[in-house]
Structure formats: structure tokens, C-alpha cells
């Protein structure tokens, strides 16, 4: 029996969220006295794939085939179901991202395997197999028991820090033929973002701004602050609705739910729907000129003041810290 982790590759290496999933899966495997096996779909050198061993995996099965160029949910599900069978996996892990959302539910229905999407902690194995996740858009948590023979979890990025170990993973090619897994959909990729932009769902640091910024022309200082921190940028819903910022930056109950280590909210009032998507952040900093802004109640640190004065000072202070270290 084993734990199978479906890992994603970007630019020749495991994605950060996949390393988290590998570590999470390996820790479940060691508790259940099973092997952690990684299914790596995409193009990467064996030396890169072997790094899964540092996160606790015993083996990596690699599949590099044009059928999996884009995440066709049907082709991926068929492949993963076959690998679950051949590795006799009883736990399957995904990341709760675009791929996980496309494939994990299909696999769940195919294998009649219970699924918990967006897990935020290791499962509690003391009484069965109970997985914790956020519900009500971050306003509450639920402990959910999976009782089916095969169990599927998709892990929320940035929820469980990876644990490094000394092990090495052996890398082997998928033993079957990948030709048969024909995608039913086709796809073309269009690059739209600047290079080096940090992906928001995976980001550890996030600088976010709201309607308090008055207009899109004022985002220069937000991007500059994000730049010195190495942070991703986000925004409140009205800001993306009026087109000041792209939709993919919208966080909250009807946008992305994120859990960075640091969330800096600038000129955002802190409406309940906004907080829902960000209150899993480890540390929240609020900059708002209104001392009564509800966001201060959810903040760890706050500055009451004008963003146009404070943000440039903050950027300068961080630059100074970075150059001192």
C-alpha cells in the first residue's frame, strides 16, 4: 500500500505547492507505514525529480508525454486511476489549485473515493481518517471523515510547511504506455503576465490594495513595495470589478482564498467578504486612514494614516533592512 502524490512541474522543477504536498503525503505515509510515491507529470531532469526524496518520498514515477501538455481532466484522471491501481495507493494527494480542482473530483467519482478539497492540516488518524479544511469561505473550519478504501485530499497551498529529510527518491519512468490517454479537449497557452511575477495562490508575502488608492495610476507604489519584498500583489473586489486591476488578483469570498505568511492590506476597509479570503494569513498588516476601518479588528499590526505617505516610507524601510542583511 502507498500514498500517491500527484505533483506538478513548472520550468523543469517541482512547484513549491507540490513540494508541500510531497512532504504532507510522506508524513501521512510514515504514520500509516506506507511508501510515498510521487507521480510527476511534465518535463524535468531526473536529478530534479530525485529531490522529492528530500521531502520524504521513496519513489518518483515520471510521465512526460504530449497527452498531458495541458491539464485535460479526463486524460489525467484515467492516468492517475491506473497509477493508483498499479501502486496500490490508498491515499492520493493533490494541490488545491487549477489542476487539483479539475482532476481530484473526477478521480473521486471514478474510484468512489472520498475527497476533502483544500485541506489545511495533516489528517487526524486517531479515530479513522479525519481531515480539516476551511468552510464558509474561511469563516469556519470543518473536520471531515473519509471512510472509503481510497482517500483523496487536495492540500491548500501554504498551509502545511514542508519538512526536509535526508532521503533520496529513485526515479523511474511510467511503465505503461501513455499514448492511450487521449485528451478530449485541446488548448493553447497565452502568456499575459510579466516574467518573474509571483503566483498569488502560492505567495508567502502579499501586498494588497483597495479602493482607498483612488485609481489604477496609483498602483506603482504598491508594485514597488511588492517588488522589494518579493511579494505577490492582490486587490479587493471593487478594484478588479472596475478594471483597475486584473480579475486574478481579486481575493475574498468570491475571489481567491489565500494563506500567505504576511498580508499587507492598504486602503481596504475589511468588509466581511474580503476578510473571508484572507483571514487564514499568518500575519496581517493594515494601513488605512480611517481608525474605525473594520480591518483593524482582524489585523496583527496596523498603521492609521494616509497610504500615499506611508507606503513609500515602508518601501524605503524595507530596502534598508534588506541591504543591512
Amino acid at each position: 500500500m502507498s500514498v500517491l502524490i500527484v505533483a506538478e512541474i513548472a520550468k523543469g522543477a517541482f512547484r513549491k505547492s507540490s513540494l508541500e504536498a510531497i512532504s504532507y503525503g510522506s508524513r501521512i505515509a510514515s504514520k500509516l507505514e506506507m511508501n510515498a510515491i510521487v507521480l510527476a507529470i511534465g518535463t524535468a531532469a531526473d536529478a530534479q525529480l530525485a529531490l522529492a526524496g528530500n521531502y520524504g518520498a521513496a519513489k518518483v514515477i515520471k510521465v512526460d508525454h504530449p497527452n498531458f501538455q495541458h491539464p485535460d481532466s479526463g486524460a489525467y484522471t484515467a492516468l492517475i486511476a491506473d497509477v493508483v491501481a498499479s501502486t496500490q495507493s490508498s491515499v492520493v494527494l493533490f494541490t488545491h489549485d487549477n489542476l487539483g480542482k479539475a482532476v481530484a473530483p473526477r478521480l473521486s467519482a471514478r474510484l468512489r473515493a472520498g475527497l476533502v478539497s483544500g485541506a489545511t492540516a495533516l489528517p487526524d488518524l486517531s479515530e479513522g481518517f479525519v481531515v480539516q479544511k476551511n468552510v464558509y469561505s474561511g469563516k469556519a473550519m470543518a473536520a471531515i471523515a473519509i471512510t472509503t478504501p481510497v482517500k483523496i485530499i487536495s492540500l491548500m497551498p501554504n498551509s502545511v510547511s514542508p519538512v526536509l529529510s535526508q532521503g533520496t527518491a529513485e526515479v523511474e519512468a511510467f511503465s505503461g504506455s501513455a499514448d492511450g490517454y487521449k485528451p478530449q479537449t485541446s488548448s493553447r497557452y497565452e502568456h499575459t503576465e510579466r516574467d518573474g511575477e509571483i503566483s498569488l495562490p502560492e505567495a508567502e508575502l502579499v501586498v494588497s490594495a483597495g479602493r482607498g488608492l483612488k485609481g489604477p495610476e496609483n498602483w506603482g507604489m504598491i508594485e514597488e513595495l511588492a517588488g522589494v519584498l518579493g511579494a505577490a500583489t492582490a486587490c479587493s473586489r471593487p478594484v478588479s470589478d472596475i478594471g483597475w486591476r486584473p480579475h486574478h488578483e481579486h481575493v475574498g469570498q468570491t475571489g481567491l482564498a489565500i494563506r500567505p505568511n504576511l498580508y499587507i492590506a492598504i486602503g481596504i476597509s475589511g468588509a466581511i467578504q474580503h476578510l473571508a479570503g484572507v483571514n487564514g494569513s499568518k500575519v496581517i498588516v493594515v494601513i488605512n486612514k480611517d481608525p474605525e476601518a473594520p480591518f483593524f479588528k482582524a489585523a496583527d499590526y496596523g498603521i492609521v494614516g494616509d497610504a500615499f505617505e506611508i507606503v513609500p516610507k515602508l518601501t524605503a524601510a524595507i530596502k534598508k533592512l534588506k541591504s543591512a542583511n
Partner: protein
Amino acid sequence: MKILVCISQAPDTTSKISFIDNDTRFNDDKVQFIVNPYDEWYALVRALEIKESLGGHVSAISVGGPALETVIRKVLAIGADDAIRIDAEPSDSFGVASAIAEYAKDKGYDLILTGKETIDYNGSEVGGMLAELLGLPFVSLASKLDLSEGKVVLETAAEGGLEIVTAPLPCVISAAKGMAEARIPNMRGIMAARTKPIEVAAGNAPALVQIKKFSLPAPKSSVKLIDPENVEQLVELLHNEAKVI
């Protein structure tokens, strides 16, 4: 074009969330239920736009008890032609997907739409499960949907850009922000909704998982306010106390 839109109800976004029965059940006392925003704003409205430009029929489907009538009437008021309520009490997404799949399997829908996720369980699960149960292609989180030569052309967010995905019909698509603009029902729609048919169908909603317990996040300790004249102190605290930078 025969389109089926899957609808869920969800607590209004300003609802106070609390639990009863030893934290095993959501306390719906005084909670107002709305149509799950992704289902209403994007999936339903895009379905109506397609019908308006190409002709066809838009049905809404929801799984649950008679209390669903309010959100179903709202969906009819916005413009769905008719609705189906599957009279079953699902306790997880698989239950919902199974009940819908059983109903939809021989009805010949060309396109089945769901919202990206519900704002209560946040699973993003029903669409994929439904597609698998019906043996159909599934594309999740589409922010744009067009029809061209008997196929759907979709946009989905991808690392650093977007994917333009083409899927054959019939298929299942989950709708994300951007696919359409929310519509507010007008008086005529509200009047018409009163007489539009709601079919009640029997169904089963088998479960694969069970919710054991709910809990609420620990309250935040109070905020540490920093003098706006001393922004360097914030950086110092983030570095040495919070250790996040």
C-alpha cells in the same frame, strides 16, 4: 442548445456563522439564503446570454428539500425557463453530483454549467464529479465561454497567463469570475417566475465523506498600532517579532 445550470443555495455573505448540535450542524436560524454567487452571476447569466443569441432552453437544477423554492424562484426570475428540484438531502458533493447525473443522463443536455465553488463548502467538486459520472469532458474555472462550430471555447487562468481551451459538446464547465456580468431580476421576470414550472424529481444522494465537527477560528488578539511617523518600527517588528520578512 439545451443548457442545464446547477444551482446551490448558500448563506448570505454577511451571515454570522455559528453551529449547533454539539458543533455538528450549521445554525441556519435567522440566516438568509441566497443563490450561490458563482452559480447565479456567471453560470446562469452566461447560459441565458447563449440562449438569447443562439436560441435554446435553459433549465436550472438543484438538489435538496422544499426550502430551495426561494432560490429556485430567483433563478427563474433572472430568466431560466424552468427548474428541477431533486428531492434528496445530500450531505456531500458526491451526493449532489450523483443526484444530478442520475437525472441528467438521458436528457440530452448540450452544456452543463456549475459555479466555480459554493461559498459554504468551498469544494469546487460537483462539476468534475458530474462530468465523470456522465462520461463527459470537464473544464474547470472558465472565465470566458463562447460557442464556435459546435464546440465551446474557454479561457482559464494558467501560470503566467491563460489557456484557451476548446472542448467538444456535450460537456461540463465550471464558471469563474469574468464569464458574465451579474443580472438583477426585473418586475416582469419576477412575475413570470411565479408561473414557471418547477419539476420535483425523486433522487438519491449517496455520500463518500462525513462532516464530524465544525469549529470557528480563534479570535485575533488585538492589533498593535504603530505610529505613522515611525514606519521603521513596523519593519523591525515584522522582521524580529513576527519573523515574516
